[in-house]
């Protein structure tokens, strides 16, 4: 700026009765007001839904996806043949409009929706994409963690673009769960994967869902835009931003200040209580699809003795854990399934808190004082709940040693299967097969999650696959739950509960039990 200009400006400022220092102050104040972006005229900005995620995304490829942040973003982008109704967990049509199951339960014929197109101009969705998606998961070259989930598939035929026929090797009554819109069930585009390539697709996904992936700024946010051509109608918001906010307290303040609209993945009891008490936002909660369990390794002494495992079960004051530690934000669990499962039963052997009985059982088993490693991952709340558990065990004469391992080390130790105990929850869809196979099937012996080395329900697992119809399935799964809970390879510590908070601007939101959230039904009211 040249001298004349400066002089002129100074003169103007002088004339307006504001000196240089005041001008500076005004400038700074103006910067703050303008910078705060508030109050924004409601019509000026397109409706953008801002959602907090607790950690960054890393991979949105359905064949390799895991972790709730990735799954939550993918939920907006992809569809499955069928999906879980958000409210009831019933299996309802998605890309398939209907399906027929052959009498022997081995052939599934799906009629597909027509007129569905892939995002970003990748053409129409056809039955060939379904075939491609599932075969890709099954291909060992893909290295998918979910190949086991689809292992019952024998062949996939595509008689026409709007029809796909899947033949199974043997009846599998839970097959619809496997092709539900979650993880391996999400359908990808053959054309897009061919053009983009596996690696790039993971962070540039092409789906058929209500939102189109726009961009990802590492550590900051993921932006999705509305798919105006979505087969079920365009979403009610223009854009969804998933913002990475690690600290839950900061996220809660941001929510109350209106910096974000939905606080996803709320966990800390203190923050939940505070948000509920504040009354500024709506806090929703719902039973999750998983319990958190203490897994006991039945292959080592003295845990091989049923009476010792029962004694440990009786010794742990689970109600005190839920009321005291979790301040009532979790529920008591009778078994390893939560009531979110349609196959859930509470008709299982129960082992209420009874230290005297625990001592008697240990005495009966002829076990003196022994030491037991309690292995937990170094993550909230698992690293902390082992403390009251250890003190409960000490009260009945078991010298419990707490071993909190950093997540990577924990996964490695657990995978080897040599840990005497560990804390495990199988998070996933409301498909009873997933936790049962993962925790109790012989095929999940280490390496795998069956660190209990349990093999008591092999025949029942096979029977469950054969069972046709909801009632028959319910009966077999009821038997599995009763048998397992009687054998105590795991002790269900608590049933997890999901909390999501949103501002009063958010309308139409439905909380699911999948640990994800769908932005599709959400609209933003003008504040």
């Amino acid at each position, binding site marked *: 700026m040249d001298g004349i200009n400066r002089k002129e400006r100074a003169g103007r400022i002088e004339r307006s009765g504001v000196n240089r220092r005041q001008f500076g102050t005004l400038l700074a104040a103006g910067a703050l007001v303008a910078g705060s*972006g508030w109050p924004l005229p409601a019509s000026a900005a397109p409706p953008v839904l801002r959602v907090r995620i607790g950690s960054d995304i*890393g991979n949105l490829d359905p064949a390799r996806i895991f972790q709730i942040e990735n799954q939550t973003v993918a939920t907006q982008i992809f569809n499955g043949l069928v999906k879980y109704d958000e409210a009831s967990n019933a299996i309802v049509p998605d890309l398939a409009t209907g399906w027929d199951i052959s009498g022997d339960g081995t052939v599934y014929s799906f009629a597909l929706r027509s007129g569905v197109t892939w995002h970003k101009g990748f053409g129409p969705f056809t039955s060939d994409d379904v075939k491609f998606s599932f075969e890709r998961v099954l291909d060992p070259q893909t290295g998918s*963690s979910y190949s*086991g989930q689809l292992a019952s598939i024998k062949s996939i035929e595509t008689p026409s673009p709007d029809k796909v026929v899947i033949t199974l090797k043997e009846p599998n009554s839970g097959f619809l769960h496997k092709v539900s819109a979650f993880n391996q069930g999400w359908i990808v585009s053959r054309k897009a994967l061919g053009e983009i390539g596996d690696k790039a697709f993971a962070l540039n996904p092409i789906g058929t869902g209500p939102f189109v992936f726009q961009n990802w700024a590492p550590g900051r946010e993921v932006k999705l835009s509305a798919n105006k051509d979505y087969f079920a109608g365009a979403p009610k918001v223009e854009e969804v931003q998933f913002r990475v906010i690690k600290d839950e307290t900061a996220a809660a303040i941001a929510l*109350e*200040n209106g910096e*974000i609209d939905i606080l996803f993945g709320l966990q800390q009891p203190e923050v939940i209580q505070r948000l509920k008490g504040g009354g500024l936002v709506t806090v929703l909660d719902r039973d999750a699809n998983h319990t958190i369990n203490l897994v006991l390794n039945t292959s080592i002494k003295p845990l091989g003795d049923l009476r010792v495992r029962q004694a440990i079960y009786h010794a742990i004051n689970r109600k005190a854990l839920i009321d005291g530690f979790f301040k009532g934000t979790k529920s008591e669990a009778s078994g390893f399934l939560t009531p979110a499962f349609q196959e859930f039963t509470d008709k299982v052997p129960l082992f209420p808190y009874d230290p005297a009985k625990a001592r008697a059982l240990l005495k009966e088993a002829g076990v003196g004082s022994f030491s037991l490693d309690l292995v937990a991952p170094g993550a909230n709340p698992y690293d902390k709940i082992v403390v009251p558990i250890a003190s409960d065990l000490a009260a009945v004469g078991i010298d419990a040693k707490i071993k909190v391992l950093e997540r*990577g*080390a924990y996964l490695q130790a657990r995978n080897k299967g040599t840990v005497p105990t560990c804390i495990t929850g199988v998070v996933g869809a409301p498909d009873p097969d997933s936790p049962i196979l993962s925790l109790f099937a012989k095929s999940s012996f280490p390496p795998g999650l069956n660190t209990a080395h349990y093999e008591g329900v092999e025949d029942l697992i096979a029977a469950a696959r054969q069972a046709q119809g909801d009632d028959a399935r319910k009966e077999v799964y009821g038997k599995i739950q009763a048998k397992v809970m009687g054998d105590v390879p795991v002790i269900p510590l608590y049933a997890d509960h999901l909390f999501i908070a949103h501002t009063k601007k958010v309308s139409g939101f439905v909380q699911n039990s999948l640990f994800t959230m769908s932005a599709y039904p959400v609209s933003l009211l003008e504040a």
Partner: protein
Amino acid sequence: MDRLLRQLSQLAITVFGIVTVTFFLVRMIPGDPAQYMLGDYATEEALATLRAQLGLDQPVYVQYGLYVLRAVTGDFGSSVVTGRPALEEILFSLPDSAILAFAGLAVAVVIGIPLGILTAERQGSWSDMLIMIVALFGISFPVFWLGLASVLLFSQELKWFPALGASSGGGFLTHLHHLVLPAGVLGISVAAYITRLTRSAMLEVLGQDCIRVARAMGVPERRVVWRLALKNALVPILAIVGVTFAWSLGSAILIEVVFSRPGIGSMILKAVSARDYQLVQAGVLVLAVAVVLVNSLLDLAYGLVDPRLSTR
């Protein structure tokens, strides 16, 4: 020229050493990147395939050799989690970290140096004592505590600043508004160091003969302190600023976590827990180069401040 070459070679050796130590340290942490990436449902075959793809089935020394060979050609590998080039991913988050570190340092210098001079000038007075006690608090309080406290006060109660340290879109002013709290907290925690060390540097200079002579000759006290003494104390003060720059990068990790700001610090933290070896390597490399470069620049600045040093 000679000096520049010597500095460059020193830089190369330092960075190489740091990267080598990091390489082996990270691999000593138990935990398997493949397991982390594939999750609980991973089959043994899938794990083995991924390990082979990542070259993790090789002995550590082979991995190291390959790493060095590739690094020389500028290839620092790809992130295990995202599959994108590690260096690219780190460089993407460099501006965020640099803005925070420099803004924090600016706050620290603006607060710390005048306060340090003031306390040296009034050594033993009540204002000296008060400032030193406050500085002691500044050093003693963990930066994450200051961060959380400032969020509670300025975001939750007063609603002056956003709780999130990074904005999503918006113009320069919006970004600035989001930066005030994190940079302020970082600056204040670093300022405490700069204040204390500036005070010592000034006291040392103020005790020198040349200052006594100047005072005896009747040079005004203000001129003695702010011109003569400060000029002489500037070299140690610059050295302090260099050290605090490295230190503020370390604190920036905590600031980034508390204020949910993206940056190299939080990225390395995430990479360590994911056993994302390449990303950790690239992150440490970039940080090391940044620290060494800033110190080299300060070395050059000494020459400007005190011409005697440039001829050494």
